[in-house]
């Protein structure tokens, strides 16, 4: 009687282990893709959306920092690389980070490392042609998020910071 269940039991255990690891390995991509879609609905794709300071109404991402002004560029590289330009802002700390499809950070640089100078990078997948001389950030997967974080240690400074950050840009480069 029991012997008839041994084969099905082994199959069940193997499928359980496989389902566990497939779910665990795919969930970051799924959650990132959902976040990219959410941001796309709020401000479009391959362009920076400049968010207000986070409040208890904010739902774009989990655990937003209320001390930071976020500008997010959800990107899709399926039609070509992305050019990002970040202008300095009047804040003690700001940074640009690029998150690839599996949520890993492909690039991060802050104003202190960059000596307060503007930053320009091109985000591209492996094999995509990029402009000569560009600082290239290679990512795995076509969808992700470029994020500017700006420290707002005094809310009175936010209007000036908000005005300045709008000089930053994020746009697709036509495939060459």
């Amino acid at each position, binding site marked *: 009687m029991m012997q008839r269940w041994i*084969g099905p039991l082994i199959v069940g255990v193997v499928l359980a282990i496989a389902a*566990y690891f497939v779910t665990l390995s795919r969930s970051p991509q799924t959650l990132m893709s959902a976040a990219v879609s959410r941001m796309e609905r709020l401000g479009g794709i391959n362009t920076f959306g400049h968010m207000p300071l986070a409040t208890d109404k904010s739902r774009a991402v989990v*655990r937003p920092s*209320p*001390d930071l002004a976020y500008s997010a560029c959800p990107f899709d590289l399926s039609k070509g690389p992305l050019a990002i330009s970040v202008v300095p802002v009047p804040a003690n700390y700001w940074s640009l980070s690029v998150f690839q499809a599996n949520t*890993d950070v492909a690039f991060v640089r802050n104003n202190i490392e960059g000596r307060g100078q503007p930053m320009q990078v091109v985000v591209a997948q492996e094999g995509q042609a990029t402009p000569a001389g560009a600082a290239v950030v290679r990512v795995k997967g076509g969808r992700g998020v470029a994020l500017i974080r700006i420290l707002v240690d005094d809310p009175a400074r936010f209007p000036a910071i908000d005005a300045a950050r709008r000089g930053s840009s994020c746009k697709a480069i036509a495939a060459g």
Partner: protein
Amino acid sequence: MKPLVRYLVLGVVGVVAGLGSAIYTVRAGALGSNVQIGPWTTGMDFGTADQSMRTRAVVALRGLLALPAREARYYTASVDDAGRPLNGRCSYRITGGQLPGRWWSLTLYDSAGYLTGGGPYSVESAAIPAENQARWTVLVSPVRQQGLWLPTAGLKHFDLTLRTYLPPDEGRTNPARDQLPSIRQEACS
């Protein structure tokens, strides 16, 4: 029962069990549950290729777009110093000093990871007077308090995230217990 039906039943049970276990593992995981320092949990490999499959999944759920350790360290507490879950109907005294980073902030979140309570939502290092940087106190309570205060909104559960930016040693070492704030429960209503 026919053999094919037996394989089908246990196959479906296996897939559902594996799927459910993975979802539970991710949902039950704290942000940075691989290192425990007093009530604080943290990790050093967020956002990097070195992080485990589980860490990557938990960070994607609980702290998507987290920075790597060289830029910021994240410490999350869902219990007090005595190991009791943080309860929004209780008051807590958070006491700390100089923290390992160029600047820091302490933020209160609901159990889903969103801000709550109508503000203030966080206390950051610039709010601490210079003479108190070596010894400061933040009160966490459902009712307004004098001084630095974070409201709990009476939530059944909440947690605290401490962010330290530009940590020394590029975030490669964990601070000692006494370098991170203590969380002491006071009265409960």
